[in-house]
């Protein structure tokens, strides 16, 4: 499938790759350049492939409370929160964002590769009074990320953006296009995720990129940016075979409420589990890759789920599931790749600590 912005990517010679049944740009001018431009200035990412669901009704809040690990009842209007959708065994069906639009009105943003599975699971668990609408095919999504993103959006659209705290959103018009804008993202930098009708996608893309201050960035930079920020990726760190306790050590889970998969979470938290997700810093630029074994004293103690050279830090970093007695920062481990063994050390996440995402102002 092609997003509505496919022709825009081809126009500027993006290199396209298959991703979750979509043809997506992996890079335009180069991953490292696009990565640096996001950390220092501002990039725009086509994320139209992602899914958006509208959920409404008097029981919507309690339905979602049962479906999601995050606390829904404490979400305020105009606030969004990250969490997991679990199956009955506590396996992760998806990681997602839940936006509260009103007392009985929510908006979910889900991964492209899991969209249909999520929709079926959610519908199956909604009360009869709750309506479910899949908005994905007529909702465009653009991520505008980087320390100058606010200034650039204000200049381009000749508006003043409202003061949005981290994980808050609002509705506004950009060039007369009705738009939902949240101060969220997947890069670790100050930035926004924009949602608006697909019919306007090319025009908004053109407006955002025309003066050249905001440049497009592809999935390649999106991946290195999220990895430096320590964010998990569904399909790599997160899957139905992993539980949120292993992936996030209990973050994004509200144990004070009832939800599908809670018994398994409670058991994991009470009894402990075999492996946890950790950050690994490697000694050199040489990268570990997905599937590389993590070794300790000649024993296999884990597996790398993502690995790359870190453009900002200048050495290789990785996320890996590692045996639970070896996860303290400073723990020395080895990573066995096809050809060689690389020295690594467990470090605190995020790898990159100077991101502007949570700053009070830019």
């Amino acid at each position, binding site marked *: 499938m092609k997003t509505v912005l496919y022709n825009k990517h081809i126009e500027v010679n993006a290199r396209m790759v298959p991703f979750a049944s979509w043809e997506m740009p*992996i*890079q335009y001018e180069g*991953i*490292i350049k696009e990565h640096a431009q996001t950390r220092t200035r501002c990039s725009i990412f086509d994320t139209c492939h992602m899914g958006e669901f509208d959920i409404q009704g008097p029981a919507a809040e309690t339905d979602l409370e049962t479906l999601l690990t995050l606390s829904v009842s404490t979400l305020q209007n105009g606030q969004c929160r990250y969490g997991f959708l679990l199956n009955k065994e506590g396996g992760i069906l998806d990681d997602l964002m839940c936006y509260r639009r009103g007392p009985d009105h929510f908006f979910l943003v889900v991964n492209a590769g899991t969209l249909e599975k999520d929709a079926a699971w959610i519908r199956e668990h909604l009360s009869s009074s709750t309506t479910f609408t899949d908005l994905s095919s007529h909702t465009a999504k653009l991520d505008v990320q980087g320390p100058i993103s606010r200034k650039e959006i204000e200049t381009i659209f000749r508006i003043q953006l409202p003061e949005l705290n981290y994980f808050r959103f609002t509705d506004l018009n950009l060039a007369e296009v009705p738009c939902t804008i949240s101060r969220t993202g997947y890069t670790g930098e100050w930035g926004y995720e924009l949602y608006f009708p697909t019919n306007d996608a090319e025009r908004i893309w053109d407006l955002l990129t025309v003066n050249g201050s905001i440049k497009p960035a592809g999935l390649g930079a999106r991946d290195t940016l999220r990895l430096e920020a320590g964010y998990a990726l569904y399909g790599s760190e997160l899957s139905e075979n992993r539980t949120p306790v292993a992936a996030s050590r209990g973050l994004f889970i509200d144990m004070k409420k009832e939800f599908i998969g809670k018994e398994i979470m409670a058991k994991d938290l009470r009894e402990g589990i075999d492996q946890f997700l950790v950050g690994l810093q490697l000694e050199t*630029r*040489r990268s570990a890759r997905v599937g590389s074994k993590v070794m300790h004293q000649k024993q296999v103690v884990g597996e790398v789920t993502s690995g790359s050279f870190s*453009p900002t830090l200048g050495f290789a970093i990785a996320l890996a599931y590692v045996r639970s007695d070896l996860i303290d920062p400073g723990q020395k481990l080895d990573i066995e790749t096809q050809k060689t063994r690389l020295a690594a050390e467990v470090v605190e996440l995020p790898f990159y600590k100077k991101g502007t995402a949570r700053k009070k102002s830019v």
Partner: protein
Amino acid sequence: MSVPNELRYTKTHEWVRVEEREAAVGITDFAQSQLSDITYVELPGIGDKVTAGNEVAVLESVKAASDIYAPINGTITAINKELEDHPELINSNPYREGWLFIIEPENEKDLDQLLDADEYSKLLPED
């Protein structure tokens, strides 16, 4: 894509510059553009004996690792140490500063087996 006339080439996208019984080896402009940002280089040791077609070096880009093959039989006499800290030289100048290693050929006649610029250009995609 630049394919300098004075160099010889392999089907696996290495170039060879022959000067005074020594063969400098690198990867072509096409190869560097396909790999995109190169982030790590593993080079052979000086004195290593290498065999045509065998792996002698590894280049890593952000997304993947790629093997580099010896174009001819011979002995490694020099490696480009500058690449250790600046692998991006392969992207910015693949035919000069981005050279990888130098081989002293076991048999100079082996060099005649390599492709010339015309032959190599024909292997590249149009456009």
